[in-house]
Every structure is written in structure tokens, then in C-alpha cells.
């Protein structure tokens, strides 16, 4: 029986690279489906929740398409992978766009790099944080399988998550400050970096996700 990996399409950014990378790593009995249909998302065995652009627009689109509830539901019950903005909007609130309330799956804020970068001006740190940076594992996790500690992944973002519950931190990265670059809780894993653009280690993480049953 075929099993579906659904990529949630809420009009925020181009999902082609995510779906192409998933197609590259899925098992023979799995199919990748890019969808904005609530029933299809609810029926899928695995959910990938990507996102690009501004937090305000992402939240507005999720509500407009009535996808917020089905995404939260998925995050409570099946293997779920948030990527970039799809990680940030899982938090309670974002500093972006003069403040945006997000999905509130996890307590904590999404913060801007700006002040820290100013502080670290001697290092000429640029915003967005763009390029390949190290991700240090903060706990063992099935999605890190086959990926060495401190490998580099591709990032492009100006904001980062700051969860209140430190137990959900799965990875951290240094850019002037140390920030949380991956979180994991039960069946949810979310990354600030783009596995779909992170060459072989990124593909390995996606491969792990496609074989993960959501347990630890």
C-alpha cells in the first residue's frame, strides 16, 4: 500500500525544491504530494511544512486557506517536519512585521538577528544569515542518523526561534550568538536550515524523515 508524504502548500514560496528532494529519497512505496487540500493533508502519513517569506503573510495565508488547524492536528499525531518559516510559525509569537501571533505549538518567540549582528559588527556579520553553517546536535534523534555532529547545512533567514522549553532543542548554530537551529518534540522535528538545499547531509535528513515512525 502506498504511503504519502504531503508537502503543505499555503502559497508561501516555491515548493518545487522540497518536493524534488523528497522524491529523490522516498521509498518505492511512498509518494510525494504537494497539497493545499485539508483532506489530503489529513490523510497523509507524513507532513512536510516548509515556508518562505514574512511571518505575517505566512500566518495570513494559513488562516485564509484554513490550513492552520489541519497542520496543528498533524503536528500532534504523525511524523512532521517543519522547515525554515515552517519551523518559526510553530512558536507562539514572532518579532517580525512589528509582531505576529503564530501557531503557538511551542511557547517562545521568534527573534531578529539585527541587534546581535550590530553588536558583532567587528565580524562583519551580514543579515540574512545566508550560507553553510555548522549544526551541533543537542540530543540524539532518528533524524540525525548517518549525519555527523557539526556538519554544515544551508541557511537563509533573518530570524530565529527561541523556545522556552530547552528540552525541545535538537540542534544549535553559531552566528554571532548561538541560536536554536533544530527542535524536536515527540513526532515533530523542525529545522531552520534547508535540508532540501544542503547536499548529501540534507538528503540524508529527508531520507531519515521518510523512514521515521515519529518515535524517539
Amino acid at each position, binding site marked *: 500500500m502506498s504511503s504519502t508524504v504531503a508537502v503543505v502548500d499555503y502559497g508561501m*514560496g*516555491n515548493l*518545487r*525544491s522540497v518536493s*524534488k*528532494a523528497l522524491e*529523490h529519497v522516498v521509498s518505492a512505496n511512498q509518494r510525494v504530494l504537494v497539497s493545499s487540500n485539508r483532506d489530503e493533508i489529513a490523510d497523509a502519513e507524513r507532513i512536510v511544512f516548509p515556508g*518562505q*517569506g*514574512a511571518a505575517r503573510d505566512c500566518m495570513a495565508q494559513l488562516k485564509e486557506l484554513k490550513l492552520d488547524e489541519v497542520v496543528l492536528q498533524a503536528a500532534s499525531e504523525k511524523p512532521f517536519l517543519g522547515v525554515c518559516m515552517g519551523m518559526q510559525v510553530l512558536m507562539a509569537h514572532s518579532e517580525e512585521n512589528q509582531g505576529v501571533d503564530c501557531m503557538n505549538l511551542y511557547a517562545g518567540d521568534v527573534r531578529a538577528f539585527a541587534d546581535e*549582528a550590530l553588536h558583532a559588527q567587528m565580524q*562583519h*556579520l*551580514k*543579515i*540574512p*544569515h*545566508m*550560507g*553553510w*553553517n*555548522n549544526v*551541533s546536535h543537542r540530543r540524539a534523534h532518528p533524524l540525525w542518523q548517518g549525519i555527523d555532529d*557539526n556538519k*554544515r547545512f*544551508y*541557511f*537563509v*533567514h533573518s530570524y530565529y526561534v527561541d523556545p522556552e522549553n530547552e528540552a525541545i532543542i535538537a540542534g544549535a548554530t*553559531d*552566528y554571532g550568538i548561538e541560536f536554536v537551529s533544530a527542535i524536536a518534540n515527540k513526532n515533530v522535528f523542525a529545522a531552520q536550515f534547508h535540508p*532540501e*538545499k*544542503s*547536499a548529501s547531509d*540534507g*538528503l540524508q535528513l529527508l531520507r531519515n524523515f521518510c523512514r521515521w515512525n515519529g518515535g524517539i
Partner: protein
Amino acid sequence: MALAKRIIPCLDVKNGRVVKGVQFVDIRDAGNPVDVARRYDEEGADEITFLDITASSDDRETIAHVVEEVANEVFIPLTVGGGIRSVDDVRRMLNAGADKVAINTAAVFNPEFVREASDKVGSQCIVVAIDAKQVSAQGEALRWEIFTHGGRKPTGLDAIEWAKKMVDYGAGEILLTSMDRDGTKIGFDLPLTRAISEAVSVPVIASGGVGKLDHLADGVTEGLADAVLAASIFHFAEYTIQQAKQHMAARGIEMRL
């Protein structure tokens, strides 16, 4: 550990083939874009940039197909530039699989286009390409001006002011080419690169003039570039990407090896 400086091989694509000329003449064939991109990915390129130098707009679709084919099998960031004039062009390239688009001439003639494009698709997708030439005479304070049409037409725009303006308008990155150095193999224009990199908050890619590996390292250490772009030294197998990375790392630069 920190963010790595990036090496970006640039593929000038004409009629579906990778080509390389010296200062926009003397074009040589450097292969099939998909094969070249795959080789660079295997060698550890951090990103790949395609510049569509097709003369006629009738052939614009060709570059979209090239991007599509490459994006199906190469999983690192891809940038496409050349002839991007409208938000539709931007979307077409992103839909084909590009992660970023580089806007050059169209930004000079219509700066609002940069604002519109970054509003629609996000600054992280918008690279503004700047072609600059030194215009100060010997002995004068250094000054660079923006040129269009492959370096033939001056615009009267000061390069540093222009870069700042483009960032205000939503550029997420600047691709800076020295028209004086492009194709010369004598190294980047380091004072220009440094001046722009210090003037803007977004990452700057240095381009134009790489002939040996020290030039790449100099672009970072002296030019303060966040990424370095080169074409001919890689296309004609003078150096591999991996050799370039090892060389830069040996000079104390943070690299993804």
C-alpha cells in the same frame, strides 16, 4: 565554527550551452550545463549561478529548461540571472527550480522592480547584480560607476550609493562584478569589493577577475566578500572547487570542506 564563506562557480549559458568569453568576446564552449553543474556539486560547490547570456529573448525559455533539469538532480542553491525584467520572469525561474534570481539591467532602468519583486517573493530570493567600473582618474579618490550592456553604457550612478539603495529596495544579496577585471585573471577589484561590503548589511558576492586561487582568498580577507564567484578557472579544469576550498581554508578562511 562559524558561517562558511561560499565558492560559487558561475555558468554563463548561451543557447543551452555553458560558454565563457573574455570581457564579453572570444566565447568558448565549456559544456552541457547539467553535466557541469553535477560535476561542481560533486566537487563541493556551495551554490551554482547561471547567467543567461542569450542574445535574443526568443530563447529565454531555454534557460528555464536548463534550470529545471539541473534542479531535478542537484540539491544545492541555484541562482539564475540575465534578462530578468518582470515579476513573471522571477516567478518563472523560481518555479523552474531556482532559489534566487539576479536582477541587473532592469534594476537600473526601473529600481521599483526590485521592490516589487522582493515584496512578492521575499528578499532572500532577490540578488541584485551590479556591474561597476572605476571612473576616478589616477590620484583621485577611488570612485566606481554602474555600467550596463556588458560594461559598455555608463549610467552616472555611483556604485556604493547604488548598492545601498538596492538593499533598501529589498535586495537580499549583492552580486558585484568589476567590469575592469572581468575575464582578465588578475584578481578581484579588492578596494571596490571592500567598499561595497562595508557599505551594505547583506551578503556580497565578489566577481570578475579570478585567475588563481589566492585571488579567491584575497576577495574574502581583503575584499570582505561573503562569497566568491568564478567561471573560467573551474570550467577549463585549471582547478577543482575542492582545491580552491582547501587553499582558502589553508589561508585561515572558514570553509565547508
